[in-house]
């Protein structure tokens, strides 16, 4: 569905730049539309279109353009023979080729373009980090975090509503997440709380950073003025025209004592409540109606909100101010510096957690130290990949793992590499940080797919297969039909494994469309039980009966992990599947990595104009076995990141 905003953007683009798809549109009517009507619209059309794909609605060139991901999916299905379903009339080779030709022509005509600039509100995470960097301290909730308890320590995250994921799937895509009076009240409350703290004696260091180094026992109006100038620039994340600054600082001039403080706090609060603080990009400069490089401060912000989810620091601000940030050497050095900063932890804590749905691990155990141990493994691992220049494909398999005494049993002999943990007297159970180890014995644990927490949050082959398909291979699946029912148990005279019974259960061709893709991936992980333990390990402990999922648990000797992907590759077990994902399927994995990272970096859903960029980066990464650092540099240097189109003036 289009919002009026989408249409107006498309409209503006039409006017501002030459639109390349008119040709594709004419071809579409002649070559593609009849095919769709003949083979697809019966199921994918009208009110109850299957899988949220409705071909009957696509008619204008904008529709064709917006549906570019659907065309990619059509190509994939036609090549794999998964659509139309086998019990339906099939297109012949000439018809298939006609579609492929049209698609190739469509893709070849896409031109790289930046997106039309859109301001957006800071996400709760970004607001928390920005407020902390601006003031120099975090607003924390007073609560005792005893062992085995959980508490939200951030006042900002406690008070602000959780952001829904935007069109990109990430929470930093706040374009459709409007300001409300509730959020306004919380902003006001948080601004008061931060200002209250800043003027406390124990915060004098932070205050002096604004006023200059003199001690501030009784603030002078000169100090207040200096404070306001700096505060305004940092809060708005750019140099502010002198006329605007003057308007603000004039309010504290020639005042003193309590009157000065009141006026100062009032001005600071209006800055914190101003749209320029709570939104990104409202003050961006440039020529309207034109494609251009983003201004230096916007570039600094794009980098810092991508890598840190935080405002630019002083170094970035001064490079932006003297216009040297865009210099290629300076720019590259800054990216490396930012990746090395502790703030880059946000990539793992925020980006990776959302991408890989790692918050699901919180439902695995009520025992907090155990849950934290399971959740921190993939997060520490992703942080390692992001910041230590590791190849992108180490996501699939790696020799490095992060373990703690709570998870060490699952790593057999490798646990010996850990420094011994001694629990202090009188502590029943506690959170213990992970240690980095090299996998020598428990090699089946390498990479994200076979981490205990990831396996435990996805129970059974179907959830696991779906997760790999969506999160690792980047394919979208429709919701399963509501009436699928349960896999039946064996009759008294049957001795079928769960997998055999499941295959009977889903033998209907319409199930095959998705399950041919899901099942081989999911069943490859059947060597791991629902708790994430490796059942072939000598120290395997079978879970208590009531915790076992009867339907999916077979005797170890009966487990069949072999499979064949729709693209043809066969494998015996997860180790071979990982091998396939890193070789013949590497482009799919890399494409997904590039797309996910780029949508997070741009805080928006990717558009057709980003396609050539994605393709190019995927190619580069595949050819060079690129690292996360390489990818981050490539994205930060892309047209979409460096340039913008400012919409025309009204």
């Amino acid at each position, binding site marked *: 569905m289009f919002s009026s*905003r989408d249409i*107006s*953007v498309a409209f*503006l683009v039409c006017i501002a730049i030459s639109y390349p798809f008119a040709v594709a549109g004419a071809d579409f009517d002649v070559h593609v539309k009849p095919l769709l009507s003949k083979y697809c619209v019966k199921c994918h059309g009208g009110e109850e279109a299957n899988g949220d794909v409705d071909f009957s609605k696509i008619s204008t060139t904008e529709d064709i353009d917006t549906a570019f991901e659907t065309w990619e999916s059509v190509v994939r299905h036609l090549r794999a023979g998964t659509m139309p379903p086998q019990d339906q009339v099939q297109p012949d080779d000439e018809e298939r080729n006609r579609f492929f030709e049209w698609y190739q022509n469509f893709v070849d005509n896409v031109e790289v373009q930046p997106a*039309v*600039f*859109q*301001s*957006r*509100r800071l996400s709760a995470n970004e607001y928390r980090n920005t407020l902390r960097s601006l003031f120099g301290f975090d607003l924390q*909730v*007073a*609560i*005792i*975090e*005893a*062992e*085995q*308890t*959980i*508490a939200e320590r951030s*006042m900002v995250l406690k008070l602000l509503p959780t952001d829904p994921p935007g069109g990109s799937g990430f929470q930093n895509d706040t374009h459709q997440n*409007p*300001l*409300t*009076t509730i959020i*306004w*009240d919380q902003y*006001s*409350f948080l601004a*008061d*709380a931060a200002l*209250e703290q800043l003027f*406390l004696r*124990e915060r004098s260091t932070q205050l002096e950073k604004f006023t200059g180094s003199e001690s501030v026992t009784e603030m002078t109006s000169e100090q207040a003025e200096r404070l306001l100038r700096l505060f305004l620039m940092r809060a708005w994340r750019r140099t502010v025209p002198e006329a605007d600054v003057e308007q603000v600082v004039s309010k504290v001039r020639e005042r003193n004592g309590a009157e000065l403080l009141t006026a100062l706090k*009032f001005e600071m*609060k*209006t800055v914190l*409540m*101003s*749209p*320029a603080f709570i*939104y990104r*990009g*409202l*003050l961006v400069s440039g020529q*309207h109606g034109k494609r251009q490089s983003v201004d230096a401060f916007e570039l600094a912000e794009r980098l810092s909100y991508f890598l840190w989810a935080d405002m630019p620091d002083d170094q970035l601000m001064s490079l932006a101010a003297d216009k040297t940030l865009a210099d290629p050497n300076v720019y590259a050095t800054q990216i490396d510096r930012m990746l090395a900063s502790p703030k880059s932890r946000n990539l793992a804590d925020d980006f990776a957690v959302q991408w890989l749905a790692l918050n699901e691990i919180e439902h695995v155990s*009520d*025992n*907090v130290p155990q849950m934290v141990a399971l959740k921190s493994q993939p997060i520490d691992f992703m942080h390692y990949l992001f910041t230590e220049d590791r190849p992108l494909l180490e996501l699939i398999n790696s020799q490095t793992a992060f373990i703690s005494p709570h998870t060490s049993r699952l790593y057999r002999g490798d646990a010996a590499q850990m420094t011994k943990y001694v629990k*202090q*007297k*009188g*502590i*029943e159970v506690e959170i213990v940080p992970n240690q980095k180890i090299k996998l020598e014995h428990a090699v089946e644990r390498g990479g994200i797919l076979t981490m205990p927490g990831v396996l435990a949050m996805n129970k059974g082959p179907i959830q696991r297969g779906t997760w790999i398909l969506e999160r690792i291979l980047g394919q979208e699946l429709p919701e399963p039909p509501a009436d699928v029912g349960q896999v039946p148990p064996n009759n008294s005279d049957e001795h079928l494994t769960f997998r055999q019974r499941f295959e009977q259960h889903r033998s209907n061709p319409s199930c095959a469309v998705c399950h041919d893709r899901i099942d081989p991936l999911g069943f490859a992980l059947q060597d791991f039980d629902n708790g994430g333990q490796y059942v072939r390990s000598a120290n395997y402990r079978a879970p208590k009966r009531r915790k076992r999922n009867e339907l999916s648990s077979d005797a170890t000797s009966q487990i069949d992990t072999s499979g064949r992907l729709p693209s043809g590759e066969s494998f015996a077990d997860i180790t071979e599947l990982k091998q396939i994902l890193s070789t013949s399927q590497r482009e799919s994995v890399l494409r997904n990595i590039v797309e996910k990272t780029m949508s997070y970096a741009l805080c928006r859903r990717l558009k057709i104009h980003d396609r050539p960029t994605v393709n190019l980066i995927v190619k580069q990464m595949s050819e060079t076995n690129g690292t996360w650092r390489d990818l981050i540099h490539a994205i930060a240097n892309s047209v979409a990141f460096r340039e913008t189109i*400012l*919409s*025309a*003036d*009204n």
Partner: protein
Amino acid sequence: MTTRIQRRTMLRGAGALLPLPFLNLMESPAKATEPDAAPKRFLTLFKPNGVHPPSWNISGGSEHDFRMSPLMQPFQKHRNDVLILDNMGDFGFSSHANSTRRFLSGHHANTKAASMDQLIADRIKGDTPHRSLELTTEGLFPNQIGCSYISYDENGAPIPRESDPQLIFDRLFRNPLASPAHRRRMSSILDRVLEDARSLSRTAGSEDRQTLDEYLSVVRESEKRLQNMQQAEPSVDVSRFARPANAANLDQQVESMLDMIELALWTDSTRCVTYMLGNSNSRMIFDFLGVTEQHHYLSHFFRNFSRTNLESLLKISLWHMEKFDSLLTRLKSRREGNGTLLDNTVVLYGSGMGHSDNHTVTRIPIILAGGKGMLKTGRYVRYSENQQLGRLHISLLEKFGIDVDTFANSEEPLPGLNGSDFKPYQERAFASWIKVEGTQITVQGRIRMSDNLDEAKVFFVDVEGQPPVRVEVAFRDFHNFNLAYHCGTGITLTGTGSTEGGQHIISKVNELKSVHGRKPGTQNG
């Protein structure tokens, strides 16, 4: 109300920014003439992890003639303002979570209804800005979520707790509702940002203009809401209250919260407060008391016995009692009408369990305070039989004008709170004796825990005219035969042991029977 105006005048008279906690102690000039029309309040303070019974229980004594126990010493000075209830609770054992639910809900199975504090809040809230406050100190315990809540809504769902005194302060006294000054300030902020956003709007492109329109409509909406809030002058000039400082440790955090409770009740911002000093199985570490072990670990003082551990546990328990003292002192320091704030507040202090190692729910700590005219304080009321907590709740609900036939599984009110007749505990005479056959010793007498803190695992059975029989058994026997439940009562105990120099020592329990037929084991809750 006249009393309110006087309060404000007095506050203004007190001068500059008022420090907490010693806000002020003022005589009410209305004392002689004004009838006391002050509102009634209800306040609960919950103590985690039960108690060490020999340090908590009152030995002997009667309603008016009793000695407060070692753990009660911190609030000894409030003796005339407290009503100590004994023989409360009627379960052999209980989980932490069940004992927590029972504290204000009467029974652990009462999971679909409001806890009694919420019923009271509904009745007494009047036109106060905050219907009730549910407060705590510690994070959530997901493994047994019930350990973290005492207050439940009308569906029996837990009510979120607040732990931050600054946040409470800001909500109570910094919101635009709290004073005309705050309203005026918010109003000028809105004016200013509106003006700024409008000028920004003039230079913005069409996309940004949509964002700004969204922003402006929220600001205008906020202005409208502020105008609708225009109401009568509040009773107290809250702008002079000092915001609590950042807490460096648990003690400061709790002291600040007690400040907030005192202010909230006194300014009539709310009339109902529940406050948990920790989860009922609190894992907190009291490092500011020099204790490095978790409270829950220490509270299992039988299994984790050492003299040092026990002393650490008692330090923590004494600190809990000091907070109760601190609360009562605050409420008394506030003059209201002819009396004090405490006079108009019913305070319920207590824990979910008695013996903290085997979770016995008998003789649980329950103390009422204040509530002049509703409670008759200065007494020790020990009931003849173990009492359901639900009976106490029925009685307290009645005090606030709420008539219920039943509450949880209880059907009768608890007598004696206002001095009415109740059936007091009486020592019942029974024959005591010792019978020895080889290594088998049978003794009938009254069982008690050793008074010696070095012997927290030792029990004695007192027999008339003979040295007491020493019972020194493993945790298994202590727990399976529930020695803690029978403490203070007559039992017949058969065990294996030895006799050295006339001192019988039982090291294994084979059978235990209550002389009066009390059976704890069937009441596992």
